[in-house]
């Protein structure tokens, strides 16, 4: 139980600091530290993302940064894709899905490293997206 709370707090901290979503931390944490299967880890991560996204949306809405109608349309029209994705995830073997997730981790790591090195070379945070990546999920 302490391990789960620790993954949550650390995952949230890193997400807030780096501007990545919680899932990129929750999923490997649940697999590597708690020993869940990849499918169980993904399902549990999705549940954990809900309060984080709601809190983030409320906070951004206060700043006037949420277009409510567009966000709702995207969310509702996602249902078919979500169903297809969940079926695909559960039709793959755990090993295949873990390997695919590992590729996603490496892609995210490469993007973060590229942005950080670019920021360092330019001598400060970029104004186009560097400062607001902290907010995206």
């Amino acid at each position: 139980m302490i391990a789960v709370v620790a993954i949550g707090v650390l995952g949230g901290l890193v997400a807030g600091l780096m501007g990545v979503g919680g899932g990129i931390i929750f999923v490997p944490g649940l697999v590597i530290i708690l020993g869940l299967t990849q499918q169980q880890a993904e399902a549990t991560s999705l549940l954990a993302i809900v309060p984080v996204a709601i809190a983030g949306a409320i906070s951004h809405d206060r700043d006037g940064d949420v277009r409510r109608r567009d966000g709702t349309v995207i969310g509702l029209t996602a249902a078919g894709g979500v169903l297809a994705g969940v079926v695909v995830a559960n039709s793959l073997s755990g090993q295949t899905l873990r390997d695919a997730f590992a590729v996603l981790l490496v892609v995210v790591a490469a993007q973060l490293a590229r942005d950080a090195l670019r920021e360092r070379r330019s001598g400060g945070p970029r104004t186009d997206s560097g400062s607001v990546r902290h907010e995206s999920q």
Partner: protein
Amino acid sequence: MPADRTVKLGVIGSAAGLFSGVFGVGGGSVIVPLLVLWLGYDQREAAGTSLLAIAFIASFAAALQGALYANVHLADGLLLGLPAVGGVIAGAGLSRRLPHTTLALLFSALLVAAAVQLVLE
């Protein structure tokens, strides 16, 4: 709302939903760039609007994973997600005061290590 705009939002939703369902993540890395490139959003609005969409998407996906496959560990999900809300708030506040580029490089190394561990599991 013009029809072509609704179609674009629906395409973004479908793509993000598929990505989220397959990988168990929110789908922000699909939604944010598409809102910027396709609908002319600025980054802040894209991030904020994507969070509202993700609240729907992750709810659908978690419900389907639970109802169809019994994969959701309910207590673990809550013990993970509720403390994470505090973590995100603290992290966003700290991000202005910490050496961001160094942390980002360390974190990307951690992600690569996690990727190797997942392949070896």
